[in-house]
Every structure is written in C-alpha cells, then in structure tokens.
C-alpha cells in the first residue's frame, strides 16, 4: 500500500470521486457520519473545500453535505483515479 492509494477527504481534489474505506474515529463520530450516509463502501464525490481549513462539501448518492475540516480528515477515501 503506497501513501497515495488512500487519502482523506481534505486531501482529495475537488471534482474527483472515490470510495470511502474507513472512518477513523470513535463510536459517536462514526454514528453521526453514518446517520448522514457517510460510511464505508459509499461512492463519494468531492464538491469543494473552503480555504483556511474550512469545511469540505461532498456528494453521496446525489445528496450533498458539508463537514468540518477535522471530521473530513478522519474520512479515508480510495480515489478512483490514483493521485500523482
């Protein structure tokens, strides 16, 4: 496994897609993200991220949501196209 095979949502370029592989967090965080549909095996498209460690906007199953930088960093994604 190389470094670039898995990245977190903050490192993912806007406009690209990938598959969520893990959420690195406690029960509470996983629960909250899950209930919004952010969970492993889901296809995710990154829409945007705000500057200065602002929130990240993503789309899953055609529905958009925004999550804070700290949370986004805990969502691990396998990008569809490997990142150079």
């Amino acid at each position, binding site marked *: 496994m190389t470094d670039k095979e898995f990245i977190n949502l903050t490192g993912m370029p806007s406009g690209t897609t990938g598959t969520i592989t893990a959420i690195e967090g406690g029960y509470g965080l996983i629960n909250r993200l899950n209930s919004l*549909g952010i969970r492993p095996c889901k296809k995710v498209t990154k829409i945007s991220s705000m500057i200065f460690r602002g929130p990240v906007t993503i789309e899953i199953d055609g529905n958009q949501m*925004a999550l804070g930088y700290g949370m986004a960093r805990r969502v691990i994604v396998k990008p569809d196209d490997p990142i150079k």
Partner: protein
Amino acid sequence: MKILLMGNPNVGKSGIFSRLTGVRVMVSNYPGTTVGYTRGQMKLGDQTADVIDVPGVYTLEPTCQADEVALKMLDEGDLVINVINATNLERNLYLTLQLLEKKVPVIVALNMWDETAHRGINIDVDKLQKLLGVPVVATSAVTGEGIKKLVQSIPLARAPQIAAQERDARWVTIGNIIKEAQQLSHRHHRWYETLADATVQPLTGALLALVILAVSFFAIRFIGESLINYILDPVFQNLWAPVLMKLNGLLANVEFLRSILIGKLIDGQIDFVQSFGVLSTGLYVEFAMVLPYIISFYLVIGVLEDTGYLPRLAVLLDTLMHRLGLHGYAIIPTLLGFGCNVPAVLGTRMLESKRERFIAATLISIAVPCAALQAMIFGLVGARGIQYVILIYAVLFMVWIILGVIMHFTVRGFSPELLIEIPPYRLPQWRTFLQKLWMRTSGFLREAAPIILGSILVINILYLLGVFDAIANFTAPVVTGVWGLPKEAVTAIVIGFLRKDVALGMLAPLALSTGQLVVGSVVLAMFFPCIATFAVLVRELGIVNMLKSVGIMIVTVLIVGGLLNLILSSLTL
C-alpha cells in the same frame, strides 16, 4: 389518538403536517426549520386525532437539543408517520428501521415523490411495503399527491415484529432493501448543477454570497421604502391626518385625552413622527414605518430560505464563525434575528452545544437589530444621511465580531464542527411562501402592535405624571456623562425594554445632533433586548446564563456607547 410526524431533517414533515391538519406552519428548504413541536388536529373517520410535527432527526441517538425534543415525543405517540425523502431512500431508512425496532405502529410517507423521476430514481413502492412490513405511501407535500391515501392507510398501521439490531447490521439490512426496491438510472451532472455548486466553491462562492447579500439588502430597502413612500405615508398624510385634525378640534376641551391620543402639534399640524399621540405617532410607527419593513424583510428572507441558499452560506462562513466560537450554521438564526430576535433565539436550538447556544443567543440579542428597530433607523437616521446608517451597521458588526472572539476565548465548553446536509436548490412554492409571509406579518400585527400602542399610551401617562423626570435625573451620569445624550433620552432606553421601535421614535422630538442620534441608535440596539426576547432568553438559557448574558450586554453597551460618543463628539458630529 396521538400521531407523530417523524423523519430526517428537511424531508417535508411540516409540509405533510400542514396538509393533514390545515394548520399553518413554517416550511423552508433547510434542515432545522422546525425546532419545537407543533400540534394540530385532523379528522379520522368520526374521531379527531392529535397530530404532532416533530423536529427532524437522523437517528434516535440525540445530538442536539432539537433532537432531544423529538425523542421525548416518541414515548407519547400512538402512531408514527415516518416521513422519508424518496430521493435519499437509503439514508432515510436508517431512522425508519430504528423506529420499527421500537415496536410502535408506523406508516411510511415516501415524500418528495415528485422529485424522483427527474433525478433518475425508480422506487417499487409495493416491494418496499412488503420488505418493511408496514404501509408505504408515495406522497408530495408540495402538490398534495398521496395525502388522501396516507390518511386512509392510518388504520392499517401496525407495529412490526423486528428485532433490534446493531448499527452495522442495520446498514446491511438497508442495503438489501435498497437492492430490491430501488433502481437508479445513471445521469450526468446537469449544467445548472455545476452552477449550483459554484455557490459552495471558495472564490465564486464568496463573490456570489456578496452579490446575494447585497441584492437582498437593497431589495429589502427598496420594497420597504416603496411601500412607505407610495402607499402608507400618503394614506396617513392625506386621509388620516384630516380625521385626526377634526378629532383634535372635538377634544379641544379635554386636554388630557387630546394629548394622549393626538399629542403635540408642530406648527399647528400633526407631525406623525414627533407628535407622539397614540393615534398619531403610535399608528404611524406601527403601520407606516415598521410594518413595511417587516413585510419586505420576510419577503426577501423567505426567498433565501425556500431556495435552499442558507445552508450554503453556512458552509462559506464556517471558518469565520469558528473564530466566534460558533460554526457556520449559526448564521441562520443570526440572519433570522434581523427580522425578530425571538424566533432567532429559539432557532439557536439547532446548534449542538450549550456553549454555542449561549454565544449565539448573546450575540443575537446584543448585536443584531430587529427589523422594527432597523426600520426606525432607516427612517430617522437615514434622514440625516445614509452614511450614518452604514456607520451604525458597521459598529454593530464590529461588536458582533469582537464580542464573539472574546466569548470564544472565555466561555467554557466545546463547540463542535459543522456537519450539515445541503438540500438541492428549489423554486419557492407560492402556497408555502405566501403562507409563511402571512404568518410572520400577522404575527407582528397581533403580538407587537398592541405593545406599540400600549407603550405610547404608558409613555404619555408617565410624562403627565412626571415619573420620567425622576428617572432621568437619577440616570443622568451614565446617559449624559458616558453616552453624551440628553438626560431625557433615558426614557427612550427604558421604553426600549418594551419596544425598540417606539424607543427610537422617542429620540425624534429631542432635537439630537447626528452624532447623538447614532450613539442613541447603537445603545438602543445593544441595550436590554425587548421583553419578548428577554422571556425567550430566560427560557432557552436558564436564569443563570441569562444573567451572564445580560452582564456581558451591560458592560459592552457602556464601553461601546462611551467610545462612540468620544469619537463622534471629537469629530463634532
């Protein structure tokens, strides 16, 4: 029988509620519109059933105060109508399964059915019904489709026998249901979706936000001023003034009554701003100064709410709001505060932590002037030059930022990160849009109007009794010494506790310099919130935190008013 409407946020529960009961409720396009619960009644055969519109939740494990409200309700219900968003079936079914495990009778309203077709979603309702084991009805609260069938299904509801599951097992169950009951056809990103996404990109988003907020501001001003200049002011000047002058003649021998009802004549004529009688200034302030701005504000904010722009604004402003100890979503109650602080403070319930709610509510009650006060600022200060109006907004904005930063560093507790759903853009629906505008406008007329007239009555009586002179002498050191206002201005500050608009109106006859008027406006905006806001603050924060909030307010208003006076008087404004 008690029927609960439950479901994820922003799936249209309030829309269904309104269809079932005929009760008017606020419907918008952002999660968290409903923060308390609304009750209504509906006919079921020859019985009446109570229907309760419960705030939206994603799971039965609470994450904020609005969630807790929702969960407490669950114990009371005899039946749950689980409203789910058909365009987001998978996620919505999580709550559905949790509800089914609770063994309460459930029926499922598959809402937003009208949006599925163009989003390439095909759901087999019969199959879904079989898999869930409870009635499922496709509905659209917007068009009314399926509502009748939903009502007919209520007697069919029963509690299914489903064993409780762990989280991951639940998702597996949902996965299986989805595989059988839903088909998605692939669909390309449309051009307007790319355009929509531009509003959450850092650069284009910020530019568009500036444009949207500027357009909103000028639209509010334009509509408000047009209503005043072309309709309401002419009505008062041409139709009402002659009537009052007649009445004035009739009351010539009853000076006490005349001065209360009509007030001082200026150059032998009624001056609707300065006369200060109940029937002159009282009615004028209410209908010709404040009401037009209430209408125009809620017209514009209604468009922002119903299109779904507000959650995007929350994303854009999240980083800034974190500096104030809040997260982006706090901008929504803050914006509502520019209409009225009461629903704004209630709206802070959508924030997750106590600390956030304290900071947000304190900032709203100190630094966010309500529409009524703003209308008066436009009317009175705007007459001296628009730059002074801008100055007032700039000062309040700085207070908002600086006070927020200070509270961020001093208030204990934690502020969680932003985690929100961003609804698709939608066109406002006339029915719900006008209904909401009507509810807010009539709410103002019903609740604020009697207080406006009543406080002018009280002011006149207290003046005649000389009570204000005593207060004025007592508070002169602060009012005159610190803020540089004439000591009579204290009466306005006292009345500000009842109504801010009337209070600012009381400064009109005092012949203040422009600088004094600016200081007076800022002090009135920041000092004690009106009594209605005060009551919600006590209810939402508790006595202790409300006292803390008031303490912060008093210190801030003394400092800011004093500094502003020093600066403006040295500029001899």
